[in-house]
């Protein structure tokens, strides 16, 4: 059996100097991180994800239990030793002025350079390799504050990689990014684990992306308990849906995403094939219909989508009434009335 790179025994996390004096955020946490795996920490806001990550990276003390890294207690690592094992990317954007990408990534060499921070040839090699891993070669001399959010986040990941850690810990690295940026970062993390042997632990709110790219999920519920398993197992067991349960939001187990449940307009039957059917279905759900698809024994409101030379046409039928539309927009406008 594989031994984990990092594991916790009855870990208790939280804060000590507040009111009340001890605020426990999570307890009885028994977690494992293996070499080369990509783990996503997911859970609703306020579940304590950041607290857990800060505790695991030694930025705040645990309240109880143990964290063992390579068989040694985390508390016994000096800051410098820990910097050789774990590096981080934090949520809050950094505030630096005139700093080039190269200079920022070179900061990752901090634990390796001497008192006067002189960079050796090898140090610069590592900087270059780190930039290559995140696909940011060619950006070396660009100013950090002039990069896009996504580019900046990649540079921050390169900085963390330049520290040559065994474990890379990220706290919501996709928080400020647009959708393509999110996909790109999550894919990058997946590749770092898969092709470069890094152990990557990240918290994220992008459930869909986490489920598609993570080897395992740590599913943190508001009570501070963590269920862990492969994304698919957690969905099939129903744990995933339970943790994120909200009124009128339901998890579509067939498509793997959350949807708003709204059947206020009643039922509609949809006939059609392929992409046109899928996107018509989404439009109908959006305006509040419950859709049954290709149901032959359908009565009442029916929508038929069929391909024509110029694209598609949509026919709406209800009893004697029949109407034809040439785009989904006008179809939806009509159905909304």
């Amino acid at each position, binding site marked *: 059996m594989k031994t984990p790179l990092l594991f916790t025994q009855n870990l208790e996390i939280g804060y000590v100097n507040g009111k009340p004096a001890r605020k426990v955020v999570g307890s009885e946490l028994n977690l494992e991180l293996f070499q080369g795996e990509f783990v996503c920490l997911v859970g609703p806001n306020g579940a304590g994800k950041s607290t857990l990550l800060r505790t695991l990276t030694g930025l705040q003390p645990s309240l109880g239990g143990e964290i063992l890294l390579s068989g040694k207690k985390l508390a016994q690592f000096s800051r410098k030793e820990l910097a050789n094992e774990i590096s981080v990317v934090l949520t809050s954007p950094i505030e630096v*002025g*005139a700093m080039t990408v190269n200079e920022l990534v070179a900061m990752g060499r901090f634990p390796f350079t001497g008192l006067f921070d002189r960079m050796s040839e090898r140090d610069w090699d590592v900087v270059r390799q780190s930039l290559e891993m995140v696909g940011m070669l060619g950006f070396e001399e660009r100013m950090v504050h002039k990069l896009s959010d996504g580019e900046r986040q990649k540079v921050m990941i390169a900085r963390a990689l330049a520290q040559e850690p065994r474990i890379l810990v990220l706290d919501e690295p996709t928080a400020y990014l647009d959708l393509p940026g999110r996909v790109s970062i999550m894919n990058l993390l997946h590749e770092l684990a898969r092709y470069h042997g890094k152990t990557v632990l990240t918290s994220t709110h992008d459930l869909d992306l986490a489920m598609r790219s993570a080897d395992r999920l740590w599913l943190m519920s508001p009570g501070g308990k963590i269920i862990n398993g492969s994304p698919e197992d957690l969905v099939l067991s129903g744990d995933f849906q339970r943790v994120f349960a909200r009124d009128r939001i339901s998890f579509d187990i067939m498509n793997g995403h959350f949807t708003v449940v709204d059947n206020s307009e009643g039922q509609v039957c949809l006939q059609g094939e392929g992409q046109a059917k899928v996107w018509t279905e989404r439009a109908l759900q959006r305006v509040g219909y419950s859709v049954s698809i290709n149901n032959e024994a359908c009565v009442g409101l029916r929508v038929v989508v069929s391909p024509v030379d110029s694209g598609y046409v949509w026919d709406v039928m209800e009893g004697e009434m029949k109407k034809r539309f040439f785009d989904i927009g006008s179809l939806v406008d009509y159905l909304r009335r």
Partner: protein
Amino acid sequence: MKPEKTNNTGVNRTGIFILLGLLLLFVVALNLTLGSVRIPLKEIFKVLFGQGGVKDSWVFIIQDYRLPKIVTAILAGIALSASGLQMQTMFRNPLADPFILGINSGASLGVAVAIMGAGLAGGLFIPALSAVGDLGLVAAASVGAGAVMGLILLVGKRVNNPTTLLILGLMFGHATSALVSLLIYFSAPEKVKAYSIWSYGAFNGVTWDQLRVLFPVILVALGILAFLPKGLNALLLGEDYAKTMGLNVSRLRTLVLISASVLSGAITAFCGPIGFIGVAVPHIARNLFKTYNHKLLIPAVVLIGAIVAVAADLIAQMPGTQFVLPINVVTSLFGAPFVLWIVLKRKRGATSFSV
């Protein structure tokens, strides 16, 4: 590839350093010649190189008035700017400096307490202090400065807001000033006058004997700073990042505390509280060199600080007139609009250390 050498900002850093060096020589030369009495440069060289044939009064003016004053100004400019740079990085606050955060007030409190406590009936502050007491004076001022700075650090750890930090400094400054006022209240009128003159700030009045104390003290504090650029650079990413990079943040903080409070404390003890040089010079350096890197910024603020202080003193002399303005009048007149500019620039969404 040597990326350290490259710089895409189009800034010729060596060129700027040379220009700044020349500028320093220029303001020093100007300061030597100009004043209430105008002395030709040729005569000055004669005095500097010990040649005879110069009017006795000129020799006196240069040797015992203008030269020590210029050396003091250079030391003060260097010390205040280096202190301000460290504090801006450590507090992550573009407006941090010894004056604004009330650390100068701490220094004056230290001096006042030392004098009263030691029962030196002679007088308050420099005019009556013998050379024997100079080191004690520096120590007292540095301890006072360090105490206020330590307090701000301690309380400041709980607040992340730059504005709150400034308000904290302001309040500490008021509180310590009140204590100083209390001491003065129970002092003789001539001491009160001495204090008010001191509080205007001045580079003159520091003797060669006192400079023999001031110079090594400043040198030691700068020596500490020479070891800190790596840590200060890491701190630019924020304390959390710095910690995960293996930086011993509390040790760095202690060293900065010592260096910055000795630098500002020693100068405050001898020259009075001098405003705005500490806050302005680091910004000039960042703008001029387009860099964040303390390896460059430290030598840059040393040079620029010296230039600014000597130039401020030059303006204060109001060449051609018999008047001499208090140095603080000059630094405030130029410094206050500069700080306003920093604040307004920030409002436009610029980051705190952006150039």
